[in-house]
């Protein structure tokens, strides 16, 4: 029966080759299909590739900035004195092939009709491509349109947060730091619940997330663990034709024991500055973001604003951007305006503790920027992008805290001195692929 059926299809396929000239089959192809049919390989129930899929993304990027100046100050206030200024703690005026390069590999397994498992590993060039787990969860469909996921998830802080490493998914080389640098954590261990529903012609994804996070930080050469507990949030993504909107609200209690930093100073033979007094103990942290995106296939525009308020010496911060671009064939030129500012550190500045006020002042970030860039789609699934981001208005008297950092997202002026160039530029080029 099976053979008869295959022969019938073989004859039909052979016959169809004459009729449909735009898609001529080779004899080999037909034979392969007949063989597949005979073995039942086209039946999805028996084909393991239907249950397991492997996908990946890769970005190779180069970046540098144009501040050709060395940091001032001296240890123990600034251990990086004499070295080049850094942008976001990493990028210098020397070309880096590592900082924004990264690779991700994802395995999806369909366990049954309602259950699947996903694991995604990420290796960042700046971490020597050491793999870390970004996603690892079991997805279970509780009801039609209602899914529960448990394990490790990426935090849904802002509109593009959950795919922030997938360069191919957006038009920039890197997402705007004004919004995406605000929350220094990107994963959570816990669960989320997502409900898909429609109101008229608008489709919505309403999601609630709950869990905790432990983020080890080694910036000062000694481990500090930032703990987030009772991390709970809710977000809504709505789509109506070419328009998409995004709202999110997240809440957590943050703790960090900084006393190990005093030990590091003691080991260097320096007087401990008293970091223990700046430890964070269950400080309430609230993050909010709102965004929209319009994309009609050629013209697109998006805007977003995010806020993070932490009830500790860490100043409250907000950031936003507006970005627009136009696809002309395989080319997409785009322009983005961004702004960031900090406020609300009055308690830390007035508590009489020079350390917490110093930390607050050096963590203040103010600045605006214009980003000009172009994306070129080389082929489906691969692009090349370049962009230049020029900062301005980082160091004027409008800043509401005297003595605050006036270097924006560069090495803080409170430690390294002010950057002479009022308009530093960051350059980035990348090749992004998804497969």
């Amino acid at each position: 029966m099976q053979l008869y059926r295959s022969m019938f299809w073989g004859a039909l396929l052979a016959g169809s080759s004459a009729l449909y000239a735009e898609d001529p089959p080779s004899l080999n192809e037909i034979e392969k299909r007949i063989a597949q049919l005979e073995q039942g390989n086209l039946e999805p129930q028996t084909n393991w590739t239907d249950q397991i899929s492997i996908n990946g993304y890769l970005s190779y990027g180069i970046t540098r900035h144009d501040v050709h100046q060395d940091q001032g100050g001296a240890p123990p206030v600034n251990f990086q004195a004499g070295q080049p200024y850094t942008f976001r703690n990493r990028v210098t005026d020397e070309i880096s092939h590592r900082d924004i390069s990264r690779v991700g590999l994802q395995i999806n397994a369909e366990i049954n009709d309602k259950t699947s498992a996903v694991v995604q590993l990420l290796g960042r060039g700046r971490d020597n491509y050491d793999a870390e787990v970004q996603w690892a969860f079991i997805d279970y469909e509780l009801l039609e349109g209602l899914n529960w996921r448990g394990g490790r998830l990426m935090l849904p802080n802002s509109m593009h947060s959950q795919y922030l490493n997938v360069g191919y998914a957006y038009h920039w080389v890197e997402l705007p730091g004004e919004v995406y640098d605000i929350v220094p954590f990107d994963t959570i261990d816990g669960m989320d619940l997502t409900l898909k529903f429609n109101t008229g012609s608008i489709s919505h994804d309403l999601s609630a997330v709950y869990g905790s996070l432990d983020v080890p930080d080694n910036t000062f050469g000694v481990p500090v663990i930032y703990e987030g507990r009772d991390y709970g949030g809710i977000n809504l993504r709505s789509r109506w034709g070419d328009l998409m909107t995004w709202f999110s609200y997240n809440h957590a209690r943050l703790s960090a024991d900084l006393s190990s930093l005093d030990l590091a100073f003691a080991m260097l033979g320096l007087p401990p500055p008293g970091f223990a007094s700046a430890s964070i103990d269950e400080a309430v942290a609230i993050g909010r973001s709102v965004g929209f995106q319009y994309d009609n296939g050629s013209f697109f525009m998006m805007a977003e604003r995010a806020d993070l308020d932490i009830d500790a010496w860490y100043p409250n911060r907000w950031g936003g951007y507006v970005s627009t671009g136009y696809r002309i064939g395989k080319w997409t030129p785009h322009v983005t305006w961004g702004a960031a500012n900090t406020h609300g550190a009055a308690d830390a500045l007035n508590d009489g503790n020079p350390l917490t006020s110093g930390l607050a002042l050096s963590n203040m970030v103010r600045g605006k920027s214009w980003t000009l860039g172009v994306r070129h789609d080389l082929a489906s699934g691969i692009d090349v992008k370049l962009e230049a981001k020029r900062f301005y208005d980082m160091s004027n008297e409008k800043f509401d805290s005297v003595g605050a950092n006036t270097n924006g997202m560069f090495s803080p002026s409170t430690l390294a001195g002010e950057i002479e160039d009022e308009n530093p530029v960051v350059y980035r080029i990348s090749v992004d692929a998804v497969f």
Partner: protein
Amino acid sequence: MMNNSMLKWMAALIFALPMQVFAEVVVVVSMDSPVTGLSESQLRQLYLEGSGRVDGISVRALDLPEGAKVREDFYQKAVGKTPAQMKGYWARMIFTGRGAPPRMVSGNRAMQVMLDNNPEMVGYLPANQVGDKLKVLRTLD
């Protein structure tokens, strides 16, 4: 002069006719499929999620190869998105674990074979390539 322009019109018609036929895309399933109809929004949702349920029946979407003109037409008409938009959309969906794109077949004939052998699959074809083993759920023009 008159004859000349009429000739031009006729020539234009001859060229335009096959293109119009080609432009008609139909959504098809196996004759054995329990699915009897598919609304505009069900079709859009199915191709934005890769799989789903239609009237309680689990279905999976199938795609023609990337670059196929019929596929481009289908997405423009059924989902309102360009190939570049869909590629970016799936990059965001896949890597946030929100879904997998429709399985891709090698061409029109493979689409016919897959649909005929798998009643739970939904696909699309140029209207003139449906054959008698498949039934048409929707015509997109």
